[in-house]
């Protein structure tokens, strides 16, 4: 990261994945898929935190290294940049239900960096980005179906 110029930095995203009380089923599958994305050069993991929210809404944050046996994630943990600040914890935990645990993952989209750099070199500037929820796609298609039927 130290040698990486800002111009070469890919978009940085985050997710908060909640595991409701009693619903977690860790088989190692998530870690394996994450490592596959890293190994393929698709993403670079920047930071990871584990949050817990008790029934009273109190939030506790843990480092990845605090969860004990990391297995294959050990190598990933050593590369984290600790981007998140203590200030971020409450903001990230706002979406969590009481009694749940959540993993926070921040990553750089390495796959997008060359295109983003090319766009900047071409004079482009990012003015909007976002994600389209699957629910919105379903709603769009379902709204479209009667029109399609009528038009046929």
């Amino acid at each position, binding site marked *: 990261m130290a040698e990486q110029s800002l111009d070469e930095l890919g978009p940085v995203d985050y997710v908060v994945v909640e595991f409701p009380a009693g619903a977690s089923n860790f088989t190692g599958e998530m870690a394996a898929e994450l490592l596959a994305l890293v190994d393929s050069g698709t993403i670079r993991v920047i930071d990871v935190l584990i949050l817990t929210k008790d029934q009273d809404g109190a939030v506790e*944050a843990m480092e990845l290294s605090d969860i004990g046996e990391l297995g294959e994630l050990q190598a990933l943990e050593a590369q984290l940049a600790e*981007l998140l*600040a203590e200030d971020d914890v409450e903001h990230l935990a706002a979406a969590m239900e009481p009694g749940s645990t959540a993993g926070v993952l921040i990553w750089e989209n390495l796959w997008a960096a060359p295109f983003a750099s090319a766009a900047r070199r071409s004079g482009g500037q990012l003015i909007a980005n976002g994600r389209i*929820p699957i629910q919105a796609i379903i709603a769009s298609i379902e709204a479209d179906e009667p029109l399609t039927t009528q038009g046929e």
Partner: protein
Amino acid sequence: MPLRPARRGRVGVIRAPVAKTAVVAKAVTPGAAPVARTAVVAAAVKPGRRRRI
């Protein structure tokens, strides 16, 4: 367990409380045929699909 000292006293990058995203698992299983919903979404993003304006 406490966070590492490097995380304390810094300005955060998440600027506001995060809103909960609608849970996708619930959104795509409202009826008896979640597989059909999956097919609908797949059709929506199928290569070559053209919008009608």
